[in-house]
């Protein structure tokens, strides 16, 4: 048989299966494995950061190296881990959930994935080069890459900018594919308002992505222009403005956090409904909320810039519009509660992580309210209060959400049940470890500790040490999930049934576990 010929149940063999993959399940699995690997890399960088902050003058890293580590930690977690993992869930699940045989554009799908490994290599290659004496390491201006600092950065920064362009290209391709699949490939009878919540969440996410990623890509090209081609976009001496970069970046950056959030906000109702053995509460409300969040997210970006010296009217507008986003997000919380209320709940690992998501993302969202006050923000901006807020929002929300999603779908994808005991250990170590790591950071911020510093004043010592030690526990606990994933992939553990979970509903749970290579080649009937 040639490399690409195969029957419905026998996928092609060898490396070409993966290199030339056009099957959405294969590509989904590659996205997931890549993303989880990057999550571990980003986590290692986080442990380095916390090791440096264990005591006021720990010298694990020089200040130069520290700035590079915090930058790459941010870029890897956002672009290398979270986005590919959610894209992987999208690729695997969306065609099944809408009853389509595959994504609408399978070859585009392949290219979209295979741009990712080169981008990841480019991000870290400058470190490898430095080891052999070339250059001074990678980008060190923070994941926000503010100009003119990023213009001063060494040659390693250009690697990061090209990586960002590749990542943007990849995300744009994946998003186009997702939008077309959802609009065009639904099984007959599946109207938009019958489509699973996760699919709606990815539709809005994909639309947001193609709307805002070009802004980042354009901005990055402008940075490269300022660095090497004599342009002055961000330099006053040439008629430009450093704050222009801030606007461009955050115009992308704020919708980006909703791009990270919405897919898991879409998985949550599925998981909660399954383990509460109840139908999803407020389907329409959640769909409208996603749409409203999508629209609002593009008009609030400058709440990241309250201290940059914008006119008073701008500060007031951005404060008021940011407060408005709390309403659709509150609707989502309300619907999650509504799904649980008077259900019959059991607490398997996905449910534990979903409940943890509600609590931790709740803290993230509530502290966001405090930050939206343009005047009070002067005390929180660029302090550890902000660091704690966005980790509660990004880890407590999307990361817990994808972990819940991974445990939820692991038996379906691999055909084997994971170890529930190890899963529970993972959850509790993660939940407690996370809180003990990041709650002290709210206090550190309020006490006056700025962010992005490798050494700090003595009054911040005790809370930093508590945070660091707990961070080591938090990091180590993720290995429990890796163990569970490897166990299932290797075919150990109980076989999973088609339905996997007694309360589970949806087209994906009518298929065998694992599903055959091609599914729904005849569209299912949806009433």
């Amino acid at each position: 048989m040639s490399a690409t010929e195969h029957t419905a149940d026998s996928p092609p063999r060898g490396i070409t299966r993966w290199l030339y993959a056009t099957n959405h399940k294969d590509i989904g699995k590659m996205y997931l494995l890549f993303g989880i690997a990057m999550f571990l890399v980003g986590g290692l960088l986080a442990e380095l950061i916390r090791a440096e902050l264990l005591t006021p003058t720990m010298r694990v890293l020089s200040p130069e190296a520290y700035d590079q580590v915090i930058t790459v930690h941010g870029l890897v977690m956002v672009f290398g881990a979270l986005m590919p993992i959610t894209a992987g869930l999208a690729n695997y699940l969306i065609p099944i959930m809408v009853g389509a045989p595959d994504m609408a554009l399978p070859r585009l799908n392949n290219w979209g994935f295979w741009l990712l490994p080169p981008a990841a290599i480019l991000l870290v290659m400058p470190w490898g080069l430095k080891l052999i004496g070339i250059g001074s390491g990678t980008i060190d201006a923070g994941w926000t890459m503010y100009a003119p600092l990023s213009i001063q950065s060494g040659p390693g920064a250009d690697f990061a900018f090209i990586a960002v362009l590749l990542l943007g290209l990849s995300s744009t391709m994946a998003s186009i594919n997702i939008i077309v699949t959802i609009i065009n490939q639904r099984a007959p009878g599946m109207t938009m308002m019958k489509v699973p919540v996760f699919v709606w969440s990815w539709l809005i996410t994909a639309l947001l992505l193609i709307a805002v990623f070009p802004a980042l890509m354009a901005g990055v090209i402008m940075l490269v222009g300022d660095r090497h081609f004599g342009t002055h976009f961000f330099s006053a001496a040439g008629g430009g403005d450093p704050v222009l970069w801030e606007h461009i970046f955050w115009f992308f950056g704020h919708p980006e956090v909703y791009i990270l959030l919405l897919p898991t906000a879409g998985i949550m109702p599925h998981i909660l409904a399954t383990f509460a053995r109840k139908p999803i509460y407020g389907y329409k409300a959640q769909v409208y909320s996603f749409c409203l969040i999508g629209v609002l997210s593009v008009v609030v970006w400058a709440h990241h810039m309250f201290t940059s010296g914008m006119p008073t009217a701008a500060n007031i507008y951005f404060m008021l519009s940011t407060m408005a986003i709390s309403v659709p997000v509150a609707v989502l919380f309300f619907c999650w509660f509504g799904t649980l209320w008077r259900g019959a709940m059991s607490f398997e690992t996905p449910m534990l992580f979903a409940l943890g998501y509600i609590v931790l993302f709740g803290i993230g969202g509530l502290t966001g309210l405090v930050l939206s006050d343009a005047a009070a923000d002067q005390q929180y901006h660029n302090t550890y209060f902000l660091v704690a807020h966005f980790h509660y929002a990004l880890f407590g929300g999307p990361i817990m959400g994808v972990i819940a999603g991974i445990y939820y779908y692991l038996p379906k994808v691999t055909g084997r049940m994971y170890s529930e005991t190890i899963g529970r250990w993972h959850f509790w170590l993660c939940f407690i470890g996370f809180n003990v790591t990041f709650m002290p950071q709210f206090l550190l911020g309020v006490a006056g500790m700025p962010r992005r510093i490798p050494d700090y004043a003595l009054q911040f010592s005790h809370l930093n040490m508590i945070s660091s030690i707990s961070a080591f526990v938090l990091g180590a606990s993720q290995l429990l999930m890796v163990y569970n994933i490897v166990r299932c992939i290797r075919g150990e553990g109980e076989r999973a049934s088609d339905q996997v979970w007694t309360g589970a509903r949806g087209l994906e749970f009518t298929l065998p576990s694992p599903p055959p290579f091609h599914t729904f080649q005849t569209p299912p009937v949806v009433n």
Partner: protein
Amino acid sequence: MSRGRLLSKGGAALALLGPACAFARAFYDFQTPVTPIGRDVLFIHDLFLVIIAALFLGGTGTLLYSVYAHRYRLNRKPASFTGPVGAKQWIWAGIPFAALLFLDYVILGIPALHSILALADMSGSALTIKVTGRQWNWQYEYPTYGIRFTSTLSTPQDQIANRAPKDEHFLLEVDRPLVLPTHEKVRIILASADVIHAFWVPSFGIKQDAVPGYLRQTWVEIDKPGTYRGQCAELCGVGHAFMPIVVVAKSPQDFNRWVGREHADEAAQQAASSATYTRDELVAAGKKVFDTNCAACHQPNGLGIPGAFPPIAGGHAFAAAAPMISALESRGFYKNGDIVVGPVADHIRIVLQGIPGTPMPSFASQLSPADIAAVVTYERNEFGNHTGDAVEPAQVAAMKAGH
């Protein structure tokens, strides 16, 4: 499986004890505000935190109740509602959102608006100062009084490198603090010499970016004499953690006395520019200047950082981007891949003017001619460079004046 249930509840309680205590403690950890804006911000902080603590406890309490009361093991039949049914339920469902809007825009929004408008009102300032952020210290200027000086971290390198015990204000002490009068509205104009920095003093409740090429402003009215410490709050390179802000607030009379003393010191420094010193005196003074101003990049041992900052020691290999290499070559400090000791005049010129297009800044406005003379002498006689040169302040002053 009551043990499992107990463990779960115990775990949940443990995990929540942390946040509960933290919310309580947060009230005590904020630095005491000494300006009107600072007090406004503390009020908003306290108000917000009480409200979000109540929301959090309410929400989590409901969740925990549901997790307990609606468990599968109670052999429940799960409900099947998917939304509010009937007008009464719709009203109940709407109440939390109406409450949220009220909280956002009335309870939180009105004090916030008041503070934002107050912050933007610069009128009635008795004194205007200019603060310039640079990599990696602050320069303070009092245009009305003609006073200008640089304020650099004064924590010794030994403490940072863990070779000496740290003193109380580790990383929060400077050689020359900003001095401001109390009970007068001071307008602070912010500028930057290179990248974006941010001026932040927690006790004042203000933080404002210093954007290169633009001016920003904020104001303070300090109501108590004392020493207030803050830090740069925008990542600005490797020295970001090492450029603190120390403000010494004095009563208006003490402030005027300070201004008088500064003028006297200025005169003394002019005199120093024309004094003559021995080489040993220059080297001793130069070491202090080097450790404070140069060691951050060129390193205390003068070996620099490969690829980024050249060594001060001659005879060391150095490779970097082409612009840096050609800049060093044209000034006589680079030959065949090695750093060499170049001509004295060019050495002085590099310190005075910096090297445009590279991170080497100009020190003409930061260091006096006496300091520059000292540091150049130190560099030319230390790190294995035994040139025997001694640079006098007059030489530097002459070059500064444009000869």
